[in-house]
């Protein structure tokens, strides 16, 4: 399964997503660019005001901040940019090279899993006469390209030049858990370039999006290639974004002679072992550990999990990557030496999303008598610097030990707003909530329901935590009297935000 395999690799990527600037490659490498022609007016600067959610004080609006990136016109009042350029935006303004006027804009679609977004100007008339950029294909290695955009170093449009260095599956640092095809270039890609076009022969071959910290590597920038962009555009063509689908299995190469014999695999180099299957994934009820995956859509899967796709050897997940929610995938596999074929309907695999950064979301929480409950996800773990052994185990093994099956949305007692009613409980902050009043807690919503539930000793609220020696006990009437007072003291207006649904 792609998400898991790529996590370790991600640790090496200190890359910050960059607001990148797109370069346009002209037939002649030395052709001068004339800004007065208006040809470049369709590459725009995007100024973004944001509120960074506050997971420590989830009832607060967040920290105001801002940034700037690049976008470019791809159709009538449609600008393509990176998701990370417009994430958590409260206000967007588009500017062009030759026009002094700021144009307020808004998000139309945003896809965090592939770091792409489409925005539009609130009033698109200014851009009506501009020519949208058009897309090319996957550029060849060692061919020149230019990145155009508005990176740091000045206010006007900038162009940098380089060659295609590598084409590979890479982790996308925006969510930290998604990986897709990416193209590595040696054109300078700096903060502000993000979302800008990378051009070859006048056509867009990618969107600049991330690079390495300069202390780690030089001249390594990454662009999102056309297949990923076009998948995004096709996905949103029906008016909403459905996310990537995932086969959600982990493969293990077949290299060992004993393994071949046991799995009854031939010497033709075909077949990879299915080492693990996510029960909640697309093939959760179809494939089993120890099956041998032979082909996807009739395309043979090699012993090392690669597949020949569009003439290149690629990770077999690339076949799934190009598909959409509800699409069928034809799988050929072998179980106990017997060949089987089946069409599977592909769907999104949700549990991994919690392990990555999330955006455009108001933090959810519930406060009860000064006890703050929040759902576990990466943003929360980072913000609270949680080191509780049970919480860390749950987070680190949420997928590997399939803990999401029992506890789809683990809830953590993140802090205790101290008051007479809870003063002995402060040391239990950062614990995982297991049960409240006899009810198993599987999501934040359960907390609300469970708190009002009356268990055996109904004058008490009893909260069981994972791996703590004792339950937390509050006298119900004491807790309920203290609650409004605590809310006021700690300046909290609403005692819960459980989400929009």
């Amino acid at each position, binding site marked *: 399964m792609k998400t898991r395999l790529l996590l370790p690799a991600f640790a090496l990527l200190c890359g910050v997503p960059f607001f990148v600037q797109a370069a346009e490659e002209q037939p002649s490498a030395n052709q001068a660019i004339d800004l007065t022609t208006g040809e470049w007016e369709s590459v725009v600067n995007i100024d973004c005001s944001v509120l960074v959610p506050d997971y420590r004080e989830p009832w607060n609006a967040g920290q105001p901040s801002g940034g700037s990136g690049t976008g470019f016109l791809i159709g009538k009042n449609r600008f393509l940019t990176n998701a990370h350029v417009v994430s958590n935006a409260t206000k967007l303004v588009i500017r062009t090279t030759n026009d002094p006027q700021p144009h307020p804009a808004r998000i139309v679609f945003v896809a965090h899993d592939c770091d792409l977004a489409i925005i539009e100007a609130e009033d698109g008339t200014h851009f009506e006469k501009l020519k949208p950029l058009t897309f090319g294909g996957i550029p060849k290695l060692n061919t020149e390209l230019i990145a155009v955009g508005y990176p740091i170093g000045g206010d006007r449009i900038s162009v940098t030049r380089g060659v295609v260095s590598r084409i590979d599956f890479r982790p996308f640092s925006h969510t930290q858990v998604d990986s897709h095809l990416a193209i590595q270039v040696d054109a300078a890609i700096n903060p502000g370039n993000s979302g800008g076009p990378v051009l070859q022969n006048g056509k867009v071959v990618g969107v600049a999006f991330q690079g390495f910290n300069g202390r780690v590597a030089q001249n390594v920038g990454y662009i999102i290639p056309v297949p990923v962009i076009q998948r995004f555009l096709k996905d949103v063509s029906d008016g909403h974004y459905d996310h990537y689908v995932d086969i959600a299995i982990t493969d293990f190469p077949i290299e060992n*002679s*004993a393994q071949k*014999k*046991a799995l009854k695999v031939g010497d033709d180099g075909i077949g990879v072992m299915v080492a693990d299957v996510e029960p909640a994934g697309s093939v959760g009820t179809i494939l089993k550990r120890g099956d041998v995956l032979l082909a996807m859509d009739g395309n043979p899967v090699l012993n090392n999990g690669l597949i020949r796709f569009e003439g290149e050897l690629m990770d077999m997940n690339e076949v799934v990557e190009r598909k959409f929610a509800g699409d069928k995938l034809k799988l050929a596999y072998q179980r106990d030496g017997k060949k089987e074929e089946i069409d599977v309907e592909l769907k999104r695999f949700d549990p991994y999303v919690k392990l990555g950064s999330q955006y455009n979301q108001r933090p959810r929480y519930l406060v009860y008598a000064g006890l703050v409950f929040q759902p576990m996800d990466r943003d929360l773990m980072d913000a609270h610097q949680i080191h509780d*052994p049970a919480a860390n185990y749950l987070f680190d093994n949420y997928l590997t030990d399939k803990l999401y099956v029992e506890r789809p949305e683990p809830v953590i007692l993140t802090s205790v707003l101290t008051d007479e009613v809870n003063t002995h*409980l402060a040391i239990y902050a950062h614990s995982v909530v297991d049960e409240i009043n006899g009810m198993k807690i599987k999501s934040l919503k359960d907390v609300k329901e469970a708190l009002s539930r009356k268990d055996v000793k109904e004058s008490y609220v009893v909260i069981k935590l994972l791996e703590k020696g004792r339950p937390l*006990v509050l006298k119900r009437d*004491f807790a309920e009297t203290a609650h409004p007072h605590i809310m006021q003291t700690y300046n909290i207006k609403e005692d819960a935000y459980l989400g929009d649904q």
Partner: protein
Amino acid sequence: MKISLLSLITLACLSSLQAQGPLRPQVHEQEPKRRRQLIAEPGMDGAQPINNTSSLLKVNVTYQSYNLQIPWQKETSSGRRGLGVVLPNNRVLVTAQMVADATYIELELPDSGQKITAKVQAVDYEANLAVLAPNSPAKEKAFFSTLKGMEVDTTARIGDALSVWQTGRVGELIVTPMRISKVMTQGYVVENAAFLVYEATGIIRSEANSFTLPIVKGGKLAALLLRYDSKNQVATLLPAPIIHHFLKDVADGKYDGFPSLGVEFQITLDEQFRDYLGLKSDAPGVFINNVMKGGSADKAGVKKGDIMISINGSSIDSRGDYQDPQFGALSVSHIVRGRSFVGDDVEIRVIREGKEVILKSQLTRKNVEDYLVLPYLFDKGPKYVLSGGLLFQELTRPYLNSFGNEQQGGPILRLQRIANTPDEFEKVGRKKIVFLSAILPTSSTQGYERMNGQVVDEVNGKKITEIADVAEAMKEPKEGLHIVKLREFPFILHLDALKVEKDNLQLLNGMFRVSELTRLE
């Protein structure tokens, strides 16, 4: 294995009188008599002849531990130099740390430099104590002729003045003062048990042979130095009551060790929690949240959820302390571990469902071999099976600790978690955690090289509960294949039985220079 050496600072030597003069001993008000004794104490120590080392010996140890990650190899050997306290019958008391993994032990007379080889007669790594005996009975008499056995004095209290004894270059006695400021329970050098300690303040000089220093009260042994924090000038002392307990246990020829109760409890200071448990506001007791299977409390019938209110008649307060007649408020664990012996009767009173219940049993000790994950491992090599390149080992604390704090991601973190939550693994019948600690590159392990840290569930259809099961199971491949089932990704490994045989010969004679393919004892 890491032994924390004492870090000592060198400071000018102060006479005990000067150092102790300004300090007022802290005494129990109800014992005015005792006060006078305490004040008299510093003078007594200071008045002792300064060349009296007749109860001290230099102890020189060479040690060599096993490599925990490459278990057929040993690490570089190294040395420790400390002091030993001469006991009656020509025996010598040192800390267990001093002789851990010893390959050679010698005793040296501080003044003449005369030496005699010695062996460990008894050792307890939890209590951190060992008794040494000379190897040669023929030389023993002459060697010990100038030495005098030291008595153990268990009467020290908070506020008492003590002296640290060290020897100088030619055997002269160096005496520096200390004063006990606190008494509590704490782990010594291994993590699984807490014992009584004295905390004392004072300066300890840096001298040769500073490992294991005797702390003396009125010419008698009051403690051994356990560790010294030179920055705060706080010494943690291994106290006479524990030394006395150890020596008494050794004396009967059969060493039983220090008993334990085998419970985990929670304090009950929280009033709402007390109400919920039905405890009155001034009632004693702690909430039992875990009872170790087979432990003393389990045998007595203590259950999870009980409120433990007394042991052997001593009432337990809401912090889990009892009033010790000598030391004041002290963790209840000392009643069992420090004041009782294995086999002694124990009476535990608990409140269960609102009623007081009296539970009785005999005290036991959890032997180190009975832990799912060994808390420590000295003097012997880690158990392993190396087969075809797969290295199976039993999980131990020292193995986990050998990675230090930096490399604790991934598999080590997962194994650490198992070590911290042994119950669920013991429940399903595992005696030890067997895991793949490494995979050596051989023809049988082609494709598996990068794995490590997976827990082994099954080999060739046989459930694995300890390392010996692996050795047995590997004798019975099925249709020419070995099948190893793992608890983690990739869950299953297949090996060719013939190739494994060939690779085993290669491993013994080839570049890895493996001396033995298994160590099961």
